[in-house]
């Protein structure tokens, strides 16, 4: 409320005595907003997790794009994955908006300084695929934790959100993990005897 008052004063003082910068806050019943805070908070936190994954994939894309690494197929795979992770974050935001959430504390939803990836160099395509698979596994287990919290929320079992997380998010996790594991398996077999040539050929498959 105080900040609203400051805004009004700023508007009136700076720009024009008649400028109406703010509008009234409507009075809307709250009974439909039924998400439990414990559940809301873990979903909010997970938005950041998805964006962390996006930046981690972006770092992988950057690494494999380098002239001294030159694996455009791997880079392509990881750049695409980065944008997909960002889409996951946006899907969660849209879900929260649909449930009447995010009317406050929106600015704190994303902390840019927590996003920068720590690992930015990989010894081979195979080591990056392993990291990607482990990253997905850790996201999967975090989604399972979300489901647990939202099922056991003090207010009520939030089965609508749980259904969404299970049907939409977990399906994508399991399909994505299978895909990465399959790629890694093929690559490992190709590089077993043929090393560099195996990775070179596999990279072109990913273009």
């Amino acid at each position, binding site marked *: 409320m105080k900040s609203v008052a400051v805004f009004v004063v700023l508007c009136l003082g700076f720009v024009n005595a008649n400028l109406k910068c703010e509008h009234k806050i409507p009075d809307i019943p709250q009974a439909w907003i039924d998400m439990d805070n414990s559940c809301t908070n873990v979903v909010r936190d997970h938005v950041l997790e998805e964006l962390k994954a996006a930046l981690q994939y*972006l770092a992988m894309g*950057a690494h494999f794009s380098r002239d001294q690494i030159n694996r455009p197929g791997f880079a392509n795979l990881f750049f695409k994955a980065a944008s997909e992770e960002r889409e996951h974050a946006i899907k969660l935001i849209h879900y929260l908006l649909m449930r009447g959430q995010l009317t406050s504390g929106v600015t704190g939803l994303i902390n840019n300084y927590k*996003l920068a990836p720590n690992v930015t160099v990989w010894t081979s395509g195979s080591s990056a695929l392993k990291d990607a698979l482990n990253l997905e596994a850790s996201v999967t287990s975090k989604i399972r934790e979300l489901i647990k919290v939202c099922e056991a929320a003090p207010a009520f079992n939030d089965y609508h959100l749980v259904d969404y997380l299970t049907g939409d998010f977990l399906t994508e996790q399991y399909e994505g993990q299978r895909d990465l594991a399959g790629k890694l398996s093929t690559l490992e077999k190709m590089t077993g005897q043929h090393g560099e040539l195996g990775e070179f050929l596999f990279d072109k498959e990913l273009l």
Partner: protein
Amino acid sequence: MKVVLAVFAAILAVASAAEECYTDVVETCNNPSLKQEGVLTKCDAQYGGIVSAESDLQKLANSLIHRSFDFLLMATHYGNYIKNRPGFEKLFRGLSDDLWEDGIESVKYITSRGGQMNFKNVHESLAADAGSLELYELHSMSKALDIEKSLAKQVFDLHKETANHRVDHYDPEIGHHLEEKFMGKQKETIRKLAGHAKDLGNLLNEERDPSLALYLFDQYLQK
């Protein structure tokens, strides 16, 4: 024979900086211990001013990514049921999507010139700007305009660096990249946002409650 080759390689190294990679290959192929390591260190994609511009290019890429998230949060604020302004939400989400794509393209560009990305190399202007993104309509429009102008300034500053005629800075290819990928688009975006801010300012400059004007303006933004 070996001596002759070594002298030959030395002459090559001195005579021609432009044949660094070739010299590297000749040296490595003729030296048993280097051959065993099998690493060519001078066959990279770097030329022109990339080494001196790399850090600023990293900062630009990070600014684009960071600002894309700022716009995503501004869109989110307008998507909640209290604000309920799908036009503003669409506008800011569009700006977010554009900057995200530009960020990825900038990372690719750095590597196309033989550089590396560093996600922790952040421009000073970002650290100084940590205010709330949950703003009233006119405020959010002015914020968006300022953000786009700050990005345009970063592009101009970098362009100026690459036009510096010191040998290790001059790089018209980077300048060309900045002109082609950013300048036209930024001009359009800045003009559009300035127009919106001006219109909104005029519409809200009345004795009446601004709610209807904001509603109509939001309808217009949805188109």
